[in-house]
């Protein structure tokens, strides 16, 4: 049996996130080196602020400024920073209750080592040099040697300066995310792909219903049992149905118009898909008999072209539609 195939799979996208009113104010505030919280109906100040009271779900909009200094409520030492994390050198993760807030914010704390960190220690925000209106505008926290500012006093001063109102507010952030996977198509697909490398299309027969699956997927989907008997199918087949593609699909370098078809290879009990060429697109029809055209180094046939034989009768393939 061939060695099971695997391949890297990268899932990556720069997500664009519109912020809504409260998050917009908070992240714009960070850009301006100001930390905002939001006051709940029972008077608690949440930092970071959200649009709703976490306990009652009621809408809250009463923004207040809090200090850029605070107290560590719990922490954890991260000896090996990972991709995307705020610091590249070992750091502490910390929940920090900023002065004037009743809840804690998660971020990194830059400290020389775990011995320099303790619950209850005082810290302050280290602002990023370039700030765009994102949580990473806080580069991290750093140790800060002072006495706690009285929360009530802070909140009072904050009220005076209409918090949350900024020129040119940030309304959206872009958050790129990349995840790396190793994809395993499985043993049945490995057998199929290995045969395909030799330009042979090998399906598998279900021991219960006797249908031939191409490509085999490890199970007969109607019987729920493994397919195991290999059956070579094709190379010729019949176009069961198709469409004419007039719009360029992203990332596909094929001149339009072209025909995308479902093709039932001889001996297979369901159709696979492929492109039809070697014939004007408007002459492709259901029932057309076709054969694969390979190009050097490709895993799949580049396309299928008309085979020199009469069209198949509708009744011979209507069950494969």
């Amino acid at each position: 049996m061939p060695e099971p195939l695997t391949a890297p799979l990268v899932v990556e996208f720069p997500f664009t996130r519109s912020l809504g009113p409260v998050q917009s104010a908070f992240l714009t505030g960070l850009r301006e080196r100001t930390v905002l919280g939001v006051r709940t109906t029972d008077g608690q100040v949440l930092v970071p602020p959200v649009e709703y009271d976490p306990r009652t779900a009621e809408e809250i909009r009463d923004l207040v400024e809090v200090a850029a200094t605070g107290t560590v409520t719990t922490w954890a030492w991260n000896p090996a920073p990972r991709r995307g994390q705020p610091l590249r050198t070992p750091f502490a993760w910390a929940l920090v209750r900023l002065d004037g807030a009743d809840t804690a914010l998660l971020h990194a704390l830059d400290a020389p080592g775990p011995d320099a960190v303790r619950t209850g220690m005082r810290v302050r925000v280290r602002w990023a040099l370039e700030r765009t209106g994102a949580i990473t505008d806080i580069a991290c926290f750093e140790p800060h040697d002072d006495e706690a500012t009285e929360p009530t006093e802070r909140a009072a001063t904050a009220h005076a300066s209409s918090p949350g109102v900024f020129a040119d507010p940030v309304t959206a952030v872009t958050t790129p995310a990349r995840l790396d996977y190793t994809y395993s198509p499985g043993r049945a697909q490995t057998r199929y792909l290995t045969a395909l490398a030799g330009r042979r299309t090998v399906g598998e027969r279900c021991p219960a219903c006797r249908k031939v699956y191409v490509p085999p997927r490890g199970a007969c989907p109607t019987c729920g049992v493994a397919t195991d008997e290999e059956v070579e199918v094709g190379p010729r087949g019949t176009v069961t149905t198709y469409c004419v593609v007039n719009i360029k699909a992203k990332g596909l370098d094929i001149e339009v118009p072209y025909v995308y078809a479902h093709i039932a290879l001889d001996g297979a009990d369901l159709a696979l898909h492929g492109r039809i060429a070697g014939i004007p697109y408007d002459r492709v029809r259901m029932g057309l008999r076709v054969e694969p055209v390979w190009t050097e180094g490709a895993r799949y046939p580049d396309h299928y072209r008309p085979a020199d034989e009469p069209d198949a009768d509708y009744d011979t393939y209507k069950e494969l539609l």
Partner: protein
Amino acid sequence: MTREPVAVVGIGQTRHAAARRDVSIAGLVREAARRALDDAALTWSDIDAVVIGKAPDFFEGVMTPEHYLADALGAVGKPLLRVHTAGSVGGSTALVAADLVTARVHRTVLTLAFEKQSESNAMWGLSLPVPFQQPLLAGAGGFFAPHVRAYMRRTGAPDGVGSLVAYKDRRNALKNPYAHLHEHDITLEKVRSSPMLWDPIRYSETCPSSDGACAMVLTDRAGAARAPYPPAWLHGGAMRSEPTLFAGKDFVSPRAGKDCAADVYRQAGITDPRREIDAVEMYVPFSWYEPMWLENLGFAAEGEGWKLTEAGVTELDGDLPVNPSGGVLSTNPIGASGMLRFAEAALQVRGRAGEHQVADARKALGHAYGGGAQFFSMWLVAAEPPTT
């Protein structure tokens, strides 16, 4: 053992748009939830449990977003259940919520579905490259167009039927203030002359990609008695699944869809759906699926669905109005699209559909489907409570 009757007493949806840049994900779902609560004259604290659905997490790039959304949905201290059954998920989610009431596990349940597709890109989310697999050579419509051609071949339907559906649905959407597409200058000629993207599917016959959410409050008899507006009563609900691809699969009229409809009709005591059902909200992502589903759901004999469309039966003032809201062709936040069908069906029998109200609608069907035409969920709602 008796089953508790289920009433829909609150319905809310967002304004839908290609990109709702004015709200966060939480803000989007709360807009729908708040409207559903207001409709039911309830507050967050009246809700016993929350059931939430959406399509792939990759669309927003948030894994199990219900965890982040727990606070926004008033779910803290309550049960919160997440459903994902591909495109049918909006419908399945509502049915899971209904089961909680039927089984008397909870009395009043908030159910919600959403998609904020503008956070990424729907085509990216739907077609993440999978190693070793042959790429789909045709974009979104290319998956569906060959099945439409198979339908046309099988039934002899004339070319123009798809355009009729799109023209109807887009006009219906003009009467629905929440719809994404409001094409005020739409004409049949414009639809017919729109570019042929994936022959036989034209541009105007395809669905948009939307940001949006839909929410409903489901409750028991006692809850219905307290509701300020007439409820919609659940008379039947079912889900059916079949494999993605298999030898003998009928993509034109999948058996799972037929079986699902038959189950719903049996529960609701419907023997002649064409006569007994007053309005249908069905999941039509490409216009040709209207005649296909008319047959699959038993409103027309095999091969006859397009004749109903062609004769104007499915128009808003026809005798079987289909998608009076404008349907998926006018609004498509994928994960919420199924729940919108269920909710719009309920709005009809509550007499609260506004300008797109079907006169005297007493029984309505909501329909959702997804995957490779493999997952189906449907419910039948009525103005009167069930008798058994």
